[in-house]
C-alpha cells in the first residue's frame, strides 16, 4: 500500500503528457486543443499503467507467487503428487482465477486513491479508452502470471508432460484471459470506490467468471490428459462467445462508472 503512495507521485510528475492528468499546456490552450485519437489515448494510458507496474511490481509478481503457493496448497490439500486430465485442468483454472482476483482488486486502487479518476475525467478524451487500456493491462498481467504459473504447474503437479498440450493450451488460456480481463476490469471499476472494495471485487468477479472456468477447464482437460487430445471446439466457441458478449457489454456500461 505504501509503495503506491511513494511511487505513484513521482510518476505523475515525471510523465505528465502520458498520464491522464491534463498538462499545463492543454489547460492553457483551452477548447482549441486537438482531441487525441482513441488509439493514442489507449496507448498513453497503457504505457502509464505498465510503467507504474514496472516501478512498483505490485500485481503480476504477486499474482505469480500466489499461484505457485496455491499449487503447493493443492498438493497437500488433495494429498497428491501428480494430477492429470480433469483434475489438472480444474486446479490450473481455479488457481489462475484466484490469482486473477488479486490483480482485479488492485487494478483501480491507485486511481481511486490518488485521484487518477479525476485526472482522467478532466482530459478531453474518450472514456472508453480507460476501459480498453485497463483491460489490456490486466491481460498483460494475466499473460505474465501464466508464463510463471503454467511451467510451475507442469513442474510441481502435472503428470503428463506439457509438450503435447503446448500448441493449443496458449490459445485456450488466451481466450479465457480475454474474458477475465474484460469482466475483471468492469468489476474492478465497480468495486474500486466502495467500502469493502477487496471483498466486493472477489464476490462480484467469481460468479461472473464461472462460465470462463467451465469453458477453460473443459477445453484444457483433454490437453492435460495422459493421452493428450485436441481441445473440443465447442468450448473454444463458448469462451469466444463469452469474450465477445461481455466485452461489448462491459465497454458499453463502463462509461457510466466514470461520471463523478
Amino acid at each position, binding site marked *: 500500500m505504501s509503495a503506491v503512495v511513494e511511487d505513484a507521485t513521482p510518476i505523475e510528475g515525471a510523465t505528465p503528457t502520458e498520464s491522464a492528468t491534463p498538462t499545463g499546456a492543454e489547460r492553457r490552450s483551452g477548447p482549441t486543443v486537438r482531441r487525441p485519437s482513441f488509439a493514442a489515448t489507449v496507448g498513453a494510458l497503457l504505457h502509464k499503467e505498465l510503467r507504474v507496474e514496472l516501478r512498483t511490481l505490485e500485481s503480476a509478481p504477486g499474482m505469480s507467487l500466489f499461484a505457485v503457493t496455491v499449487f503447493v496448497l493443492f498438493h497437500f490439500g488433495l494429498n497428491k503428487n501428480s494430477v492429470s486430465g480433469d483434475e489438472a485442468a480444474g486446479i490450473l483454472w481455479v488457481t489462475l482465477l484466484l490469482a486473477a482476483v488479486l490483480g482485479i482488486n488492485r487494478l483501480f486502487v491507485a486511481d481511486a486513491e490518488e485521484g487518477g479518476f479525476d485526472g482522467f475525467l478532466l482530459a478531453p478524451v474518450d472514456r472508453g479508452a480507460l476501459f480498453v487500456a485497463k483491460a489490456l493491462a490486466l491481460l498483460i498481467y494475466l499473460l505474465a502470471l501464466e508464463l510463471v504459473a503454467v511451467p510451475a504447474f507442469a513442474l510441481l503437479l502435472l503428470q503428463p508432460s506439457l509438450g503435447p498440450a503446448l500448441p493449443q493450451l496458449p490459445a485456450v488460456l488466451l481466450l479465457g484471459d480475454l474474458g477475465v480481463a474484460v469482466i475483471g476490469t*468492469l468489476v474492478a471499476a465497480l*468495486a474500486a470506490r466502495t467500502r469493502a472494495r477487496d471483498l466486493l471485487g472477489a464476490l462480484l468477479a467469481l460468479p461472473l467468471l464461472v462460465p470462463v472456468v467451465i469453458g477453460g477447464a473443459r477445453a484444457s482437460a483433454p490437453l492435460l490428459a495422459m493421452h493428450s487430445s485436441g481441445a473440443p471446439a465447442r468450448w473454444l466457441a463458448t469462451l469466444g462467445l463469452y469474450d465477445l458478449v461481455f466485452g461489448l457489454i462491459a465497454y458499453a456500461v463502463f462509461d457510466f462508472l466514470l*461520471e463523478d
Partner: protein
Amino acid sequence: MSRTQRARSQSLGLLAVATTLAVGVALGMIFFYAPLEAEQGFLQKIFYLHVPLAIVALCGFVVGGVFAIQHLRTRESRWDLRSYVAIHMSLIFGVGTLITGSIWAKGSWGHWWVWSEPTLVSFLIVFLLYATYQPLRFAIEDPERQARYASVFAITAGAFVPMNFIAVRLSTAYLHPRVLGGTSNLPPQMALTFMVSLIAIALLFVTLCRLELSAKRTRGRLRALRRRLAEDDPAIPVRRIRSAAPAGHEVHA
C-alpha cells in the same frame, strides 16, 4: 392523497385480490386436478411450484436489468427504485426456488443437491451473483453514484443470466430423467395446471413488487415531510428512518 396515489392504491388492491384468487385456484388445481405422475407420484407436484418460481425469479432479474437500462438512459431515480425492487423480490423468489429444488432433488434422487441438474446449478450461480447486489449498493455512500453503479451491475448481471445457462447446460451430461425439459411433452391437464401456477406466481411477484414500491414511496414522502417539519422547527431532530431502500430515492426537501 393525490389522484395518482389513490389510483395506485386502488389498482394495488385489485391486483392483490386477483393474486389471491389465482394462487388459490392454482393450489386447488395442483392438489385436486392435476394427475399423479407415474414415476414420482405425489412428489412431482412440487414441480408446479418450483419451476414457476424459477422462471419468475429469472425474468425478474432480467427485468431488473431492463429497468436499469432505463435508469441510465433517463437518469430518473424511479427506474432505479423499480430495478432494485425487481432484483430484491427475485432474490426472495430465488431462495424459494433453491429450497423447493433441493426438496425435489432429495425426494427423487436421494440427495439434497445434485450437480447433474444444469438448471439448478445455473440458478445457484445466478443467485450467488445477485446476492452481491445489495452489498455492492450499500457499500456506496453517494445516492446518485449508488444508483448508477447498481444499474451497471444489474445490466451486466442481466446479460449474464442467459450466458450462464448456456455454459452450464453445455457442461452437464444428462444423467437424470428430465422433467424440466419443457412443457411440450406434458399431458394437457398437467400443462394447464402448470400454466395457471405460472400465472399465479407471476401475479404474486408483481403484487409484492408493487407493495414494496409503494412502501418505499411512502417512506420517502414521510422522510421529506419530516425534513420540512424540521426546517420549520429546528427543535425537532431529523430522525433517519431505518430502511433498506435505495438511498437514491430519498426525497431531498
